[in-house]
């Protein structure tokens, strides 16, 4: 199966197989008015199987989302058909508006205007806690 190369846009590669849909949803890629290709279970020498997302427009990506959901991904910026930048993701120190606190006793459960913010408290365990009530993601 062939997907055309993109001229100006972004390729999110080395997505852990099965996580492509979640990343597509969290980045809101379904709302873009450009072409977006989500390729699942592509062959990969390193990973066996992987997912890939190609976005046919130079949009601003929320790298916190990518770093949180799948820190091993590679983001390539494509300009005039050439890769001009490759970025590796890292675990973000803070997640703002990415995930919601599910503790019914948390202040965020009643104050709808509050942004849900989580802080990385244990990088080794990829553990994030709500800044308000300290509940784990």
């Amino acid at each position, binding site marked *: 199966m062939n997907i055309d190369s993109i001229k100006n846009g972004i390729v999110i590669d080395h997505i852990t197989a099965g996580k492509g849909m979640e990343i597509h949803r969290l980045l809101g890629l379904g709302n873009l008015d450009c072409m977006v290709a989500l390729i699942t279970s592509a062959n990969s020498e390193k990973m066996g199987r992987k997912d890939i997302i190609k976005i046919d427009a130079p949009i601003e990506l929320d790298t916190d989302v990518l770093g949180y959901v799948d820190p091993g991904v590679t983001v390539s910026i494509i300009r005039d058909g050439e890769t001009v930048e490759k970025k590796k993701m890292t675990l973000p120190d803070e997640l703002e508006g990415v995930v919601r606190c599910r*503790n019914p*006793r*948390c*202040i*965020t*459960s*009643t*104050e709808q*205007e*509050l942004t849900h913010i989580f802080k990385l408290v244990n990088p080794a365990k990829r553990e994030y*806690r*709500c*800044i*308000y*009530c*300290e*509940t*784990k993601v």
Partner: protein
Amino acid sequence: MINKYGIPSLLSILDLSVQEIDELVSTAEHIIANPKSYAQRCKGKKLATLFFEPSTRTRLSFEAAMYELGGNVIGFSEANSSSAAKGESVADTAKTISCYADIIAMRHPKEGAPMVAAMNATIPVINAGDGGHNHPTQTLADLLTIKLEKGRFDHLVIGVCGDLKFGRTVHSLIDAMSRYEGVSFVLISPEELKVPDYVRNAMKEKNIPFVETTDLEGAMPTLDILYMTRVQRERFFNEEDYLRLKDSYILTADKLDNAKQNLSVLHPLPRVNEISVAIDDDPRACYFKQVLNGKYMRMALILKLLGV
């Protein structure tokens, strides 16, 4: 915590370093010895007590503390008598109260509400209890009591008994006392009310010695301090669970028979029936001294946060 306006607040006992706690304890001891010299220190200052859920001890303790410093008090004692009943956000309440008062003491049933207030207020905010989360000024009262009763914070075996799951005072006490050398904990609770994972994991990561047990009498002879807690009806979503667990531990005089003679029994109060009133006259009962110590520590804290 210091907010974007550079205003300090106290949200968790861990906001205070060991040195700052020592300073607060010293100030409180100085207040106890020289109350008159503090009688006008907050003259012209106002404390706002924003209590979104009922409290007797904590609210009156804050109010007594401010009056004894020569200051004044405004506020409300239940959410129904505030604009929260009209749907006002905590952030807006904090901004509004900042126009009227010099410092806020806030109790709220939702965890993290005082943090939201502290992020938005232009005056210091003291967390006077946020749900089952934190209650740092109770811990300050506990700490002063331990210091006055034991003369030290280190090398103590501390038993905490009762509701260790929702008991915010327990979590804060463990956080605070874990920072002193040679302190170990005996966590006594029914299976359903054991400490949350994050508290247990934090103790493991810091290599704090602790054991978990359901046997209060078995643990008794080893303890220097016994911190009793109430099973709190308001923390349960299910009344049946509350009724099943509420009488798990009742401290009676016979259970103290095999305790150390210099044991100190603490309780954040109010008690329901978990400590028999027969123990109140036992010299080991320290829970009413704890109430008084709470006022002194709140005085010391108000002075520190107001910088006066």
